[in-house]
């Protein structure tokens, strides 16, 4: 048959093919009652016009990415071994999002419209965090779109992908309720949420032993110190206080709790306790 010569990847199906590969298009031949599956890479714009003239393209199928992300159905062949998923929650009409995604990521991304305000952007290539943050700036600056962006981790494409992605969705939801930001990364959110995942006895222990009702200043101090890996100079700079003032606070804290914030393990504990107090205050 001629089609097979034109398109080496051609597969002929005699029942409606339920699972579509990411990289293929499917055409229905009504004279012969069969379906042709052809690799997209082999179809030129011109080919596409011819094929659509003779056959009907089957586009109404469930999106394979959606199947993968919601049910873990991995397509037979996938050119991607790992992906990063961005979740975007639009606060305003986002019909321009598709243009923005194409301009920004070119062929490196696939946009899934999950609902009118929820979008998943699947990235096939790696972009730096700085670039991804720039994407949100582009949305605001050039497209006047307003929303929140959650940047997931790089995940392997396996039948477990939907499970990992579900966790990312949950984390996005929790962090959104906790603190409003326009951009979240997984790692940052995880760090903020960590205290909530401690079991009850540990939470209670931290509250009873370390929380002699820390004031706002001390909470900020501990948090900043933790974010700066215990580096006094850079933490002091961010806090706009002198290094010695910070040292003074650290000493005062140590007198009250016997925790030395210059030690990693002590700082972690103090950080968790401080976050816990902050979180419970809000709820």
């Amino acid at each position: 048959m001629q089609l097979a010569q034109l398109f080496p990847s051609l597969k002929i199906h005699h029942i409606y093919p339920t699972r579509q590969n990411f990289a293929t298009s499917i055409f229905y031949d009504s004279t012969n009652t069969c379906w042709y599956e052809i690799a997209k890479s082999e179809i030129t714009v011109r080919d596409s016009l011819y094929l659509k003239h003779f056959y009907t393209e089957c586009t109404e199928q469930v999106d394979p990415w959606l199947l993968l992300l919601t049910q873990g159905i991995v397509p037979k062949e996938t050119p991607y071994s790992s992906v990063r998923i961005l979740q975007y929650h639009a606060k305003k009409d986002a019909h321009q999002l598709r243009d923005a995604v194409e301009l920004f990521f070119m062929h490196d991304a696939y946009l899934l419209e999950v609902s009118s305000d929820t979008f998943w952007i699947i990235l096939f290539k790696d972009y730096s965090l700085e670039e991804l943050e720039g994407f949100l700036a582009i949305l605001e600056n050039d497209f006047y779109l307003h929303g929140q962006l959650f940047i997931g981790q790089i995940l392997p494409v396996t039948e477990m992908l939907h499970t990992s992605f579900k966790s990312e969705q949950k984390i996005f939801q929790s962090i959104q309720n906790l603190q409003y930001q326009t951009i979240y990364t997984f790692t940052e959110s995880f760090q903020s949420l960590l205290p909530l995942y401690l079991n009850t006895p540990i939470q209670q222990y931290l509250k009873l032993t370390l929380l002699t009702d820390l004031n706002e200043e001390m909470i900020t101090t501990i948090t900043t110190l933790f974010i700066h890996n215990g580096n006094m100079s850079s933490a002091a700079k961010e806090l706009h206080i002198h290094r010695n003032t910070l040292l003074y606070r650290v000493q005062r804290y140590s007198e009250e709790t016997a925790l030395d914030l210059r030690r990693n393990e002590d700082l972690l504990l103090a950080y968790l306790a401080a976050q816990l107090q902050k979180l419970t205050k809000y709820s």
Partner: protein
Amino acid sequence: MLDFDHLVKRYPDGYVAVENFHLKVEPGEFLVLVGPSGCGKSTTLRMVAGLESISDGELRIDGKRVNEVEPKDRDIAMVFQNYALYPHMNVYDNMAFGLKLRKFSKEQIDVKVREAAAILGLTDLLDKKPKSLSGGQRQRVALGRAIVRDAKLFLMDEPLSNLDAKLRVQMRSEITKLHYRLNTTTIYVTHDQTEAMTMASRIVVMKDGIIQQIGIPREVYDTPENVFVGGFIGSPAMNFLRGNVVGDYFEIANEKVRIPDEKLKILKDQNYVNREIILGIRPEDINDGNKQDSSTLVTTKVQVSELTGAEMIVYATIADQQFVGKIHADADVAMGQELPLNFNLAKAHFFDPATEIRIR
């Protein structure tokens, strides 16, 4: 040029992020909004941009209400902390993009892009992709994207916070020069008081969504309205010491400093005699200069001292109240030692302990 008329931002969850923001911005001004994290700076800026709706009050540009005007129709250019750059486009196309959207001709675009590139020193980089640029160069391209627009108003939200300390200082002066050259009205948001002090033609200090003080940098530094502004502007920060007005003196435990006549009169007029007040005094006004006048000399106890080169910063206490002073670099001080220091109250301020407002 830009009128904030009692603006309020109430978020859907009920949180009031900006309260009663009232201010007129003059043409050509470089207005800096400064304040701690979460005080509503970005929210204010985003209301101007049209990215956040205005809950109450009116915003006017050149006398016209713009509350309901679409962001794209406001003739405003923005620069954010995160650089709005397309990774697959070169510098030229990145700068040209906003103009293409606005349907400028190829020739017009070319002129504007090359002009902006020349101003920003990007001419040799026009065919480079963002990835191959340094952080400072990327920041410049982001600025270039705003400049080419010839917008009526620039909004900048912490544009330097992704740069390292050294570059930040350099870009600070570049933005100032740029403003001098273009003279475009600019609102600049930062949480860094040094940036505010060095760049602003006027500073707006905010806290908890409320304006604390508006003024030129010198005014805000010299005459802070309240304890918050005094402590926020200036580094090392202003010292605050609690004491009592007794006779002509400000007393902390056994130590006392003579209050200058002019200030004493105010305290007397306002009935602060024999009451507790807060003294706000900057580190440079506590020194070891004048050892003759015993009426301003206070005995303090040294905790730590730190040589910065030209001067020495000394951390000391009076009756357990901590403060910072600046003394001569060659002074010989030891930890725990008693040290007489000169308190120059002429430049100090007194604050009400309850309201924390400056007494005047």
